[in-house]
């Protein structure tokens, strides 16, 4: 059934595409934030250990599994895994390798569209003269679908669709004609932009400090990131955070590496290719990623501010404000480079997410590149529109958690067990070394067989049963209470203790405190409540004046579960469950396609070898 196979143009192109697949927004945003939240310099040691014991083995496993599958004409994980064993259920584990990509692409393209839009706004100097709060609320306006920042109606949807069409069009040009060309342009530009911005992070010092700010110094930021705190090494939370970061940064457990490697021929190297792409990702993360957001933000806003506010949103809510301080022209150029860098990081990853679906449909149903690419675009649009339309209701976060986090660990654990124990480490080791242009250290044979699966199992179990407040010491000594962020906590909505009905006629407060402000913004009434247990924390609730009637006013004391407004409400828990249902529908649909393909293979006598 397989059509004329696609191919890579050059070895460097393959490595850049593979590195581009791994290098994503997480390299610049997630890594430094994880480091800040996990003790700064203490994080780097577990991170490097996890890279050596889990990251590198997974890279070799996925590259060799992919090349092995490609030998039998399979370019996506369901039948790649099926080739490795006689047990037929493994191919349904392989469904994760298509599912994750489509589901992640659905919301990832939305972030990518933000970067595209912010590139435009940087060039147009939209942020010029805006205050820090103004820029932060600009982002909220942008993700509020009913509001437009450019005059284009449904602007966020428009940019999302532009981004998706661009991805689809590039995918329809094939590997060497599309994906590889983008990687060859995007990766060098990304590194160049990253280096120029990192230079500022390395040299800013206290030159951006405002009067009275004693901790506004980029060197303090670098000091916090890199000062080794060896006592944190005994904290399991830091190790788990490091292991989690390795997953995200290397794009392992997704099925994209296998798909790219499936186009490598039997006697061509994968061992050196995997190392080259993997370390290139490490370079972008450790050298460039660690030198931009945190040091620059500390240089202007201070270390305490960054410790309290470090998060993904800094990229869009803080950086444009800081770039303004560099003057009109340099600030515009820096904003364009920053969002351009994030855009290239994003698009080289989202393109990779399209290839498993396209490979599967070509292998099993004979679909050509164009049909495969445009059908991918359509499915991603169907899956992604809820994340755009109901971003503020939590759909985006739900996709990120189930598809972008849990699925990766489940699939990586399954494939590692399959590779080491079912396919067998002996055959697996031969596969890694076949055609290798480097000597693969022998120590990795036992690591792949014992250490990597064990580490993955620990990561999975830790995510399943995360103890309350992520406090492992207390859990072991005083008894195990689950945290709301654990997988079980998420399934049972442990974190939602107010507004638990899908539909309600009143809206309850989730905090106790005093109503600080009631004001109208973008046609919505906002109620800001100061927390009773904190001097600085506030929570803001939004209501539609036409549909909801406020039950509180400025100065009122409210308790948790008190009614803030009456009217007709659809609570976030409804959107969350619908998002889960939608994801399950996608998985079911893909599993059905695999089932149909299996039957078709039987009829045509093309069963797994």
């Amino acid at each position, binding site marked *: 059934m397989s059509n004329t196979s696609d191919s890579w143009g050059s070895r460097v192109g393959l490595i850049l595409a593979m590195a581009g697949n791994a290098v994503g927004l997480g390299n610049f945003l997630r890594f430094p934030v994880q480091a800040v939240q996990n003790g700064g310099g203490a994080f780097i040691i577990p991170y490097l250990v996890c890279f050596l014991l889990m990251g590198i083995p997974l890279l070799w496993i996925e590259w060799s599994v992919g090349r092995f599958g490609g030998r039998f004409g399979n370019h996506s994980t369901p039948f790649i895994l099926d080739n490795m064993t006689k047990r037929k259920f493994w191919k349904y584990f392989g469904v994760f390798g298509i599912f994750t990509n489509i589901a992640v692409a659905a919301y990832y393209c939305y972030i990518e569209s933000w970067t595209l839009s912010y590139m435009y706004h940087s060039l147009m100097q939209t942020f010029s003269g805006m205050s820090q709060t103004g820029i932060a609320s600009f982002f909220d306006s942008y993700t509020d679908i009913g509001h437009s920042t450019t005059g284009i109606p449904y602007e966020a949807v428009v940019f999302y669709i532009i981004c998706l069409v661009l991805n689809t069009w590039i995918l329809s040009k094939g590997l060497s004609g599309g994906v590889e060309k983008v990687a060859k342009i995007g990766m060098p530009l990304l590194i160049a932009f990253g280096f120029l911005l990192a230079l500022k992070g390395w040299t800013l010092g206290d030159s951006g400090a405002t009067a009275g700010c004693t901790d506004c110094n980029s060197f303090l930021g670098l000091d916090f*990131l890199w000062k*080794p705190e060896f006592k944190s090494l005994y904290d399991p939370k830091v190790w788990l955070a490091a292991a989690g970061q390795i997953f995200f940064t290397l794009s392992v457990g997704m099925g994209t590496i296998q798909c790219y490697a499936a186009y490598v*021929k039997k006697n061509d190297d994968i061992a050196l290719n995997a190392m080259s792409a993997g370390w290139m990702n490490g370079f972008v993360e450790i*050298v460039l990623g660690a030198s931009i957001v945190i040091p620059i933000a500390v240089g202007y806003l201070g270390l305490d501010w960054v410790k309290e506010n470090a998060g993904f949103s800094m990229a869009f809510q803080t950086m444009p404000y800081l770039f303004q301080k560099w003057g009109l022209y340099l600030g515009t150029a820096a904003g364009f480079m920053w969002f351009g860098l994030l855009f290239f990081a994003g698009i080289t990853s989202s393109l990779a997410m399209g290839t498993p679906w396209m490979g599967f449909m070509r292998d099993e149903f004979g679909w050509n590149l164009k049909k495969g690419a445009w059908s991918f675009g359509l499915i991603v649009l169907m899956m992604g529109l809820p994340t755009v339309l109901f971003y503020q209701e939590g759909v985006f976060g739900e996709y990120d958690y189930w598809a972008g986090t849990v699925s990766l660990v489940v699939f990586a654990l399954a494939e590692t067990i399959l590779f080491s124990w079912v396919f067998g480490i002996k055959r697996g080791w031969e596969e890694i070394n076949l055609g290798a242009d480097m000597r693969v250290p022998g120590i990795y044979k036992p690591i792949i067989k014992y250490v990597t699966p064990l580490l993955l199992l620990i990561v999975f179990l830790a995510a399943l049963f995360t103890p309350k407040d992520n406090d492992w010491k207390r859990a072991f000594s005083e008894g195990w209470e689950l945290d709301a962020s654990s997988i079980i906590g998420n399934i049972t909505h442990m974190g939602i203790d107010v507004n638990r009905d899908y539909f309600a006629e009143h809206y309850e407060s989730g905090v106790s405190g005093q109503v600080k402000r009631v004001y109208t913004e973008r046609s919505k009434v906002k109620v800001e409540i100061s927390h009773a247990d904190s001097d600085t924390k506030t929570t803001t609730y939004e209501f539609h004046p036409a549909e909801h009637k406020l039950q509180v006013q400025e100065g009122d004391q409210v308790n948790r579960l008190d009614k803030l407004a009456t009217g007709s409400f659809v609570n976030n828990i409804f959107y969350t469950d619908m998002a889960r249902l939608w994801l399950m529908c996608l998985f079911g649909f893909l599993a059905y396609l695999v089932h149909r393909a299996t039957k078709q293979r039987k009829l045509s006598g093309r069963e797994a070898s």
Partner: protein
Amino acid sequence: MSNSAFITMIVVQVTVTIITGYFFYKVLTTPPRQEPDSYSENDDELR
């Protein structure tokens, strides 16, 4: 910036840069395999 932070940063960043450079250099300098290989761009020159 403290000495320990500075040394850690330099050691880690320089090591990662050297390893990345080493592997990429090795890729660039390894002679291509005999055709048919996995890459289409050099098909004409090697045939």
